[in-house]
């Protein structure tokens, strides 16, 4: 009875639309989705152009040397005489926290993904999935606040080398937790989407479960797993708030991971509100934004390269 009703409803709807309006509707639908696509493209392109013009101002208008900006370790933009604009410590800090947190979160995330897809599919999904979703939902300021009140004192009391507790390592630990859900969920999808005849074939040859995972499944999924890690890194290097609260924000390159450091994003958020539009300091902050954009383009290129390899 109910099915019949649905069918007649569908018939009527199709009949109605066929009555002269089909062409018009066809056009409207196409128009709407095209506008949506155009808005997205225009937004991306205009942000890129805006950031590029703003970011290049410090080199073209303010006369900061791009080589000094990218390689010098001297950052003192407010000095009355000879201000220096070396952003290398921040670029270094950004790359250091990104790679180190991927180093921690990568194995844990992929391990969790294998647990969820191979070892305990039903139990793992029931427990681990909600946990991961919760981790995604926690705002970054909360991560930072927990880091500041729990992690930083812990570091100070545990490691004698960490005088203040504000350190590269604190930032790395906070970031690792933050990028864990990204890596785990993408890696899980990758593991689950592997064709099941891979597993069955391996078992048929007499391989144990661990041998199957290690020799068959991981090699087959490796491009997707790497994509998961790279996406996690992309999230890590753009994170500002939580890192700013625990990393210490000093402008020197740290000698060890127990010393404070700074990243591009933390320097931007710390200084942006205090600087005036068009001043050299403000322009160099935009240049740092441009560096971040270029870095993210590089990450996207890596992801595209990895996913193209997956098809082979």
């Amino acid at each position: 009875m109910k099915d019949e009703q649905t069918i007649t409803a569908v018939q009527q709807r199709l009949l109605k639309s066929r009555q002269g309006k089909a062409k018009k509707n066809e056009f409207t639908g196409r128009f709407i989705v095209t506008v949506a696509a155009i808005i997205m493209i225009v937004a991306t392109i205009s942000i890129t152009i805006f950031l590029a013009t703003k970011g290049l101002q410090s080199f073209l208008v303010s006369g900061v040397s791009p080589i000094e900006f990218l390689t010098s370790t001297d950052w003192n933009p407010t000095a009355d005489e000879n201000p220096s604009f070396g952003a290398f410590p921040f670029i270094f800090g950004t790359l250091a926290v990104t790679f180190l947190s991927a180093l921690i979160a990568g194995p844990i995330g992929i391990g969790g993904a294998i647990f969820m897809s191979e070892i305990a599919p039903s139990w793992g999904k029931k427990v681990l999935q909600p946990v991961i979703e919760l981790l995604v939902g926690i705002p970054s300021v909360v991560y930072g606040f927990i880091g500041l009140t729990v992690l930083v004192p812990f570091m100070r009391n545990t490691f004698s080398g960490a005088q203040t507790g504000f350190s590269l390592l604190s930032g790395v630990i906070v970031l690792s937790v933050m990028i864990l859900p990204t890596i785990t969920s993408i890696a899980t999808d990758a593991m689950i989407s592997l064709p099941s005849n891979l597993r069955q074939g391996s078992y048929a040859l007499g391989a144990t479960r661990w041998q199957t995972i290690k020799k068959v499944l991981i090699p087959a999924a490796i491009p997707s797993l790497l994509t998961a890690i790279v996406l996690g890194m992309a999230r890590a290097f753009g994170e500002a708030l939580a890192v700013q609260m625990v990393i210490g924000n000093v402008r020197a390159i740290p000698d060890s991971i127990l010393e404070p450091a700074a990243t591009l994003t933390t320097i931007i958020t710390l200084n942006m509100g205090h600087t005036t539009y068009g001043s050299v300091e403000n322009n160099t902050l935009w240049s740092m934004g441009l560096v971040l954009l270029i870095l993210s383009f590089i990450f996207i290129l890596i992801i595209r390269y990895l996913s193209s390899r997956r098809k082979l």
Partner: protein
Amino acid sequence: MKKMKLVGFALLLVLTIGFLAACGSGEDGDSSSESENTNTESTEDAGNADSEGTASGTLTISGSSAMQPLVAAAAEQFMSENPDADIQVNAGGSGTGLSEVSEGQVDIGNSDVFAEAKDGIPADELVDHKVAVVGMTAAIHPEAGVEDISKEDLIKVFTGEITNWSELGGADQEITLVNRPDSSGTRATFVDFGLDGATPAEGVTEDSSNTVRQIVGDTPGAIGYLAFSYFTDDSVVAMSIDGVEPTDENVQSGDFPIWAYEHSYTNGEPEGLAKTFLDYLMSDEVQNNIVPEQGYIAASKMEVQRDAEGKQTEAN
């Protein structure tokens, strides 16, 4: 039904596009044109605390986050007395406030520093209204055991020449510096008047005063700098400098060196609601009540004054 949905969707699209377009043209200062429509009748009895709710219109204020609580509290009081007036106070930093007021995006821009001190700001076009004074001093961890420091030693501590509090007769604790970002107004004031212009050595850098207080309170041997209003409990100790205690009275008399004006800048002489509100800020009602309640020092009570170059003279 379907048609209605489509119309609704199209409407949403148009709205979105309209909104995007409005964002793009936001820079030509629609907020300032709004303020021109404000009621100017009330300007005559402005500043008079008894004036009954005659001011109306909208006013946008942005800038210094250190000033935001004061201006917001005054605005709230002003709006309850003048129900037709709508004043929005945003933080965002002194640089943002100065930039936005000189570009006409906001009516009043708040700043911790003189407009002359910032690059790219047409300081001669802006009119300065010194609303309040804020005193600052070095904040030290209670266990460091040093509560009075000479300016000379303070400079040595902040430039990294002295690295342990025992060198100054305190506890055997290594000194940890807690700085503000390079462009911060608090840092500029502390460097100019506390360190006589010496560049501080590297240390942990945080922007928010609350975070600085927490770090100094938690880290043994830490020293930072805070406005007087942040010394509310025993977690950090306010240092005396050259034997002068960091009190409001000592700042007013000019004995305590580290203080700064809180400026409200307008682009040209203020008119309409902006003038009414600035007069209200300078009225006795605000200066004697809200200003001290929020931990600032009334600008009207200063016995000394300072110009943009930092030269200090007796107030006349």
